[in-house]
């Protein structure tokens, strides 16, 4: 449906009844939670610290509980439809969640732990939306979003990183964090520090700033409500910041202060400041009566025509307020200046209220639904108070709208005329003129080919030339082609070139709106004609410039002056034409002082308003929508997703910062006796006995050389955890033999592992063993690898399967007695090399190797023709 649709009959006036029933329910619920959270810990088997609380502590706690109850009930009584009391209730619930930590059940306890940090953002939300409960303005949205982001970070921190909380003991059962994802006490604490620091140093100061902005923007009535909070919040926050930072970061001075008697007193008093401020603020809120009274006073002083919207916006404290009147055409709406107005009726963050007298629509207010929520009936009261002014404004708007329609129709007429001129010119050019020229040419040809008729044809050609000249002149007068094609400067230069006096032209070399160009051109043409006819000037000047978004054209001459713009029809017609596109023309022509004609027109010709939009029949559908969702919305700028996105971004950022800050605490366990112990250790994959191959696990991933050329490190793939697993092959004494004694280790090696430890920075010569063959699909490459190590009886398969990386599969032997061993070596996580040692010639073996290949077919599919390897180079 159209955006200008439809307004409901006046929203019914909601009376302010005190919702006693609901108050009782809410109070009971609240007290139940409070009581439970106070009493239960006393009996909790977890034997919490509350049991040791002094009577003073308990008295303070009770007082505090009752204070919040009062806030809850007063806010509910004042604004039963509003949000404030809901936020208060939510705050109460989140603040009491800690009680569930006393329940010795891992699930309950974990959930309570996770929900616990959320009371901070709820409190921020409450403070920043006081007294309406609705977030308004970009800055507030940002701060509230940040608060929830930090809350989310805290929740994530509890959820993912906090370990089990053993400190509560295991009686009767061990309470565990069932949600833990990656328990790490150090990381958890570090992230917590970051979050607390962000809360204290960024969030709370920002909240204070936001509150101060509220204060600055608030009208006197609103300031009454805000005052207690504006005073109380900085004090509370200041204390909270010092306390939290001291506790979290262990600042000795701060901790000592809060241990001291005055510090303790402050700790007792501090929790009361904020709720007292809230309660006082709610009590002091006298929204409607004060506003309406102010409005009446202001209206009594007189409102300038067109100024009513601002007055109403002030009275309703809604800067985005729209005041609309029914368009005189009966369709759509106009504002006070008569301009058509789009009503934001489709925007759920706006509410539309009709103001009518008897059955006549006085006007329509489009406003923030929060106004209805915080003070039902206020909009109607304001409308009633402003009835007279509305009536005046409506009539004024009607007249202006009619004027606007006239202006628009004049623009349309001029545009239509221009379009018609261009069409006529095109027709003349493409039609008559072309035909005439073509005819003349034919006559010329005829003259050549038809001897004897020259005289006659000459005469005809002459006539034709005259006709063509006349048509050209006509077309130029209708609409100059050069203007359409080459623009204003070229067209004016052409005028200047034809003028009988020197004319200097200073016009930017660019295209303007066709309307502007045409108007300016006709002004120059008319002006230059007048100059030539009457001015007795020796020279003239045409200049155009863009001044403050307007197109300003001046035609100056040094003639005798005294031109009367009202005399001739030429200049007056031009003035009309200019007025039609919202331009003006001034003629300054003192006798004997030359003439200056100045035309001033908009750079863009105004859009001719087609028809007033929307149909009146739709005027009955939209009801005032008090329950629309204005939360976290800008004034008139629906951006539902932005707070969510913002929150997500902030939460992510904080999580990242927290993790980054915590990473230094993530030290790997230090090696017990130097790095060797864990650095290189045997890996217990099954290795064929006597094969000379050993697998080791370690953190080596660089290539190194074995100075004694004693071993091959077959592979050093890097696992995700940074640990490499590699196979080390002890060489046979004869490097080309798979049999026989192993090469002796260097003296003092104490076995293979000992030898490896002597190789500080063992280097793997991967490339020598395995050349990664990056075939795109599963394939086997035999030929290229035969004799890789220079031994004729040794070869290697490379098998690559990108679909299922085999990873570190260890060693694999194939049941083929003919071959000594086959080892599967993971090269890069996707490519696997099968190293095959044969007893005889490798190439010859390959020729017979089909059974083997088939027996491991489950791993790969050999290519159609896996041609045998060429014999190895000797």
């Amino acid at each position, binding site marked *: 449906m159209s955006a200008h649709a439809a307004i409901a009959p006046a929203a019914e006036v909601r009376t302010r009844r005190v919702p006693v029933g609901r108050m009782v329910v809410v109070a009971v619920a609240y007290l139940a939670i409070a009581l439970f959270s106070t009493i239960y810990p006393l009996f909790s088997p977890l034997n919490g610290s509350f049991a040791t609380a002094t009577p003073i502590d308990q008295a303070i706690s009770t007082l505090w509980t009752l204070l919040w109850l009062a806030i809850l009930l007063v806010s509910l009584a004042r604004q039963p439809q509003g949000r404030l009391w809901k936020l208060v209730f939510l705050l109460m619930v989140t603040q009491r969640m800690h009680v569930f930590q006393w329940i010795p059940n891992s699930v309950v306890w974990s959930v309570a732990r996770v929900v616990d940090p959320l009371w901070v953002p709820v409190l921020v939300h409450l403070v920043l939306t006081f007294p309406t409960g609705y977030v308004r303005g970009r800055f507030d949205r940002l701060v509230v979003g940040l608060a929830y982001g930090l809350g989310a970070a805290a929740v994530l921190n509890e959820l993912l990183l906090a370990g089990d909380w053993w400190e509560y003991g295991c009686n009767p059962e061990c309470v565990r964090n069932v949600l833990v994802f990656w328990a790490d006490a150090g990381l958890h604490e570090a992230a917590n520090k970051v979050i607390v620091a962000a809360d204290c140093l960024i969030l709370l100061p920002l909240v204070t700033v936001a509150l101060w902005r509220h204060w600055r923007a608030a009208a006197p009535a609103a300031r009454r409500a805000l005052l207690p909070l504006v005073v109380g919040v900085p004090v509370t926050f200041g204390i909270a910041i010092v306390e939290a930072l001291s506790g979290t970061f262990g600042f000795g001075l701060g901790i000592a202060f809060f241990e001291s008697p005055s510090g303790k007193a402050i700790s007792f008093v501090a929790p009361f400041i904020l709720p007292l401020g809230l309660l006082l603020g709610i009590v002091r809120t006298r929204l409607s009566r004060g506003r309406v009274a102010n409005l009446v006073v202001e209206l009594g002083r007189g409102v300038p025509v067109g100024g009513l919207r601002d007055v109403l916006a002030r009275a309703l404290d809604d800067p985005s307020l729209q005041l609309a009147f029914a368009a005189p055409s009966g369709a759509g709406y106009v504002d006070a200046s008569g301009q058509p107005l789009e009503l934001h009726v489709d925007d759920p963050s706006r509410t539309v209220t009709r103001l009518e007298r008897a059955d006549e629509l006085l006007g329509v207010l489009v406003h923030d639904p929060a106004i209805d929520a915080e003070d039902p009936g206020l909009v109607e009261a304001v409308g009633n108070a402003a009835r007279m002014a509305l009536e005046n404004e409506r009539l004024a708007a009607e007249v202006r709208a009619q004027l606007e329609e006239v202006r628009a129709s004049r623009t349309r007429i001029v545009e239509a005329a221009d379009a018609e001129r261009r069409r006529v010119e095109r027709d003349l*050019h*493409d039609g008559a003129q*072309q*035909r005439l*020229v*073509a*005819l*003349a*040419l*034919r006559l*010329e*040809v005829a*003259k*050549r*080919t038809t001897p004897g008729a020259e005289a006659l044809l000459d005469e005809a*050609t002459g006539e*034709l*030339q005259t006709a*063509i*000249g006349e048509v*050209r002149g006509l077309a*130029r007068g209708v609409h*100059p*082609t*050069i203007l*359409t*094609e*080459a623009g204003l400067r*070229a067209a004016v*230069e*052409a005028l*200047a*070139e*034809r*003028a*009988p*006096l*020197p*004319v*200097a*032209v*200073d016009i930017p070399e660019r295209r303007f709106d066709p309307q502007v160009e045409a108007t300016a051109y006709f002004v120059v043409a008319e002006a230059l004609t007048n100059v030539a006819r009457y001015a007795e000037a*020796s*020279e003239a*000047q045409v200049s155009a410039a863009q001044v403050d978004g307007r197109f300003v054209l001046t035609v100056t001459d040094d003639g005798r002056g005294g031109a009367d713009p009202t005399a001739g029809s030429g200049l007056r017609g031009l003035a009309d034409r200019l007025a039609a596109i919202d331009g003006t023309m001034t003629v300054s022509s003192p006798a004997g002082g030359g003439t200056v004609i100045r035309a001033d027109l908009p750079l863009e010709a105004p859009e001719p308003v087609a028809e007033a939009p929307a149909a009146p029949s739709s005027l009955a559908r939209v009801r005032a929508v008090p329950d629309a969702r204005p939360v976290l919305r800008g004034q008139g700028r629906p951006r539902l997703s932005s707070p969510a996105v913002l929150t997500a971004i902030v939460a992510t950022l904080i999580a990242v910062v927290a993790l980054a800050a915590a990473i230094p605490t993530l030290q790997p366990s230090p090696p017990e006796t130097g790095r060797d112990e864990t650095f290189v250790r045997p890996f217990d994959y099954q290795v064929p006995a006597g094969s000379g191959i050993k697998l080791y696990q370690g953190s080596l991933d660089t290539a190194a050389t074995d100075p004694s050329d004693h071993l091959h490190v077959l592979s050093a793939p890097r696992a995700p955890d940074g640990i490499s697993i590699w196979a080390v092959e002890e060489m046979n004494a004869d490097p080309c033999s798979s049999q026989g004694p192993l090469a002796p280790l260097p003296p003092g090696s104490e076995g293979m592992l000992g030898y490896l430890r002597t190789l500080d920075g063992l280097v793997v010569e991967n490339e020598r063993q395995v050349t990664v063959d990056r075939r795109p699909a599963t394939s086997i490459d035999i030929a290229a690898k035969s004799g890789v190590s220079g031994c004729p009886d040794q070869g290697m398969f490379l098998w690559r399967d990108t679909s299922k990386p085999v990873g570190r599969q260890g060693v694999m032997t194939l049941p083929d007695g003919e071959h000594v061993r086959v080892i599967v070596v993971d090269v890069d996580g996707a490519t696997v090399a099968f190293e095959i040692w044969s007893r005889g010639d490798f190439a010859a073996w390959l020729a017979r190797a089909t059974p083997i290949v088939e027996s491991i077919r489950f791993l790969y599919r050999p290519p159609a023709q896996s041609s045998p390897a060429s014999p190895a180079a000797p």
Partner: protein
Amino acid sequence: LSALEGPIRIVLADDAVLLREALAAALNASGFEVVGQADDVPALLASVDRERPDLAVVDVRMPPSHTTEGLEAARRIRAEHPTIAILVLSQYVETRYAVDLIRDDPVGVGYLLKQRVMKLDDLADAVRRVASGGSVIDPEVVARLLGRRRRHSPLDELTPREREILAQMAEGRSNAAIAERLGLDPRTVEGHVRTIFSKLGLEPTLADHRRVLAVLAYLRSDSDLA
């Protein structure tokens, strides 16, 4: 430019069919050979590529926007086939187009008003001059430039004969052609030219095709106005 062994071969581009056909007939009747006709720029370029004519006659105003497509096409032809002469036809006098056109490369370029083509002799003359590497500027353009009123212009110091010769130069004629056209001795023309150039403060030793540009630019300049 190609030597004129056979008839001058012409590709003709104009979106007004009647006029184009008439023009083709007239050119053929004048002893030229119209080897291709095009009604838009792509067709023109294709025809030029295919036929390699001696000369392309191009209307300034061509589809799709009917503004200066023809000029753009002329520039492209010059860039791709420097040996093909171009004769641009314009509906109205736009002195700037004329100067712009010959500024890049004045050899074998002409700018003619459409009304000029009705005089078959003038048209044929222009075609021949352009095809043989000369420059042609429509007399009306020159007249417009010369006739423009100026304050304290050195042009005022020219004698009527000198103005006449200046106009001929601006139309693109060589000294010899001017001498022939005005029935003067070539040496006399040379003397006049020197005088004119010195009066106007122009470089006197310009080659024929360069001096067209110099003269046009001089005439068009606004510096002597304000």
